[in-house]
């Protein structure tokens, strides 16, 4: 299951607000580079020895959704005298 929402909550003495970013937007943005990388990868297979290193770097792109998915449950909270900031991926 991929994480769907990145939340940011800010509570301070002056003002409090929160917002979220649906991560589906990020996945949609990733689709285009992934398709391009997929096509480039296929071309690179025509010269496997020469493109070995480049193909390894491309694996980072292919693995990126998996890394984002693994980030589900990450939380960062900062409390100070003036404000509380909480960021989490749900």
């Amino acid at each position, binding site marked *: 299951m991929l994480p769907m929402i990145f939340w940011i909550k800010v509570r301070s003495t002056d003002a409090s607000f929160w917002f979220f970013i649906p991560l589906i937007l990020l996945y949609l943005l990733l689709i285009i580079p992934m398709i391009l990388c997929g096509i480039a990868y296929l071309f690179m297979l025509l010269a496997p020895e020469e493109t070995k*290193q480049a193909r*390894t*770097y491309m*694996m*980072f792109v292919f*693995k990126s959704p*998996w*890394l984002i998915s*693994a*980030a*589900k*449950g*990450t*939380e*960062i*909270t*900062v*409390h*100070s*005298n003036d404000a509380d900031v909480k960021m989490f991926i749900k």
Partner: protein
Amino acid sequence: MAEEKMRILKMLSEGKITPEEAEKLLNAVETNEGEPVSGRSLSESFENKYLYVLIEPNEGKSAERVSVKVPFALMKAGLNIAGLIPKDAQDKIQSSMNEKGINFDLGNINPANIQEIMTALEELTIDIEADDSTIKVYCK
């Protein structure tokens, strides 16, 4: 299944894991007996486990309080991705790390080692008492 048990016992005999960790791993393997054996069987025991980093100000200090919660799955994914780094880049990273006195061989990152690292992390507890704050790192 016997293969996994042998691997755990080998890790124990080599001193890579403690008897308690070996018992935990063996229990996890036995729990999954009857289920298809896959690389995920042991890793599933890390689900819902997190690494916590807490920075608490000491009494009388007005420092900020910070709490970071990182899922084990993210650390595992990071280690797996580190294993994808090409050989040339690995050599450069390795030499830089050696210069700094960090003897960690990136080339040794493989699924078995990741499993060992994650198992060892489960027992991790670090407490640092500084002048202004206390830092705690633990897994739960």
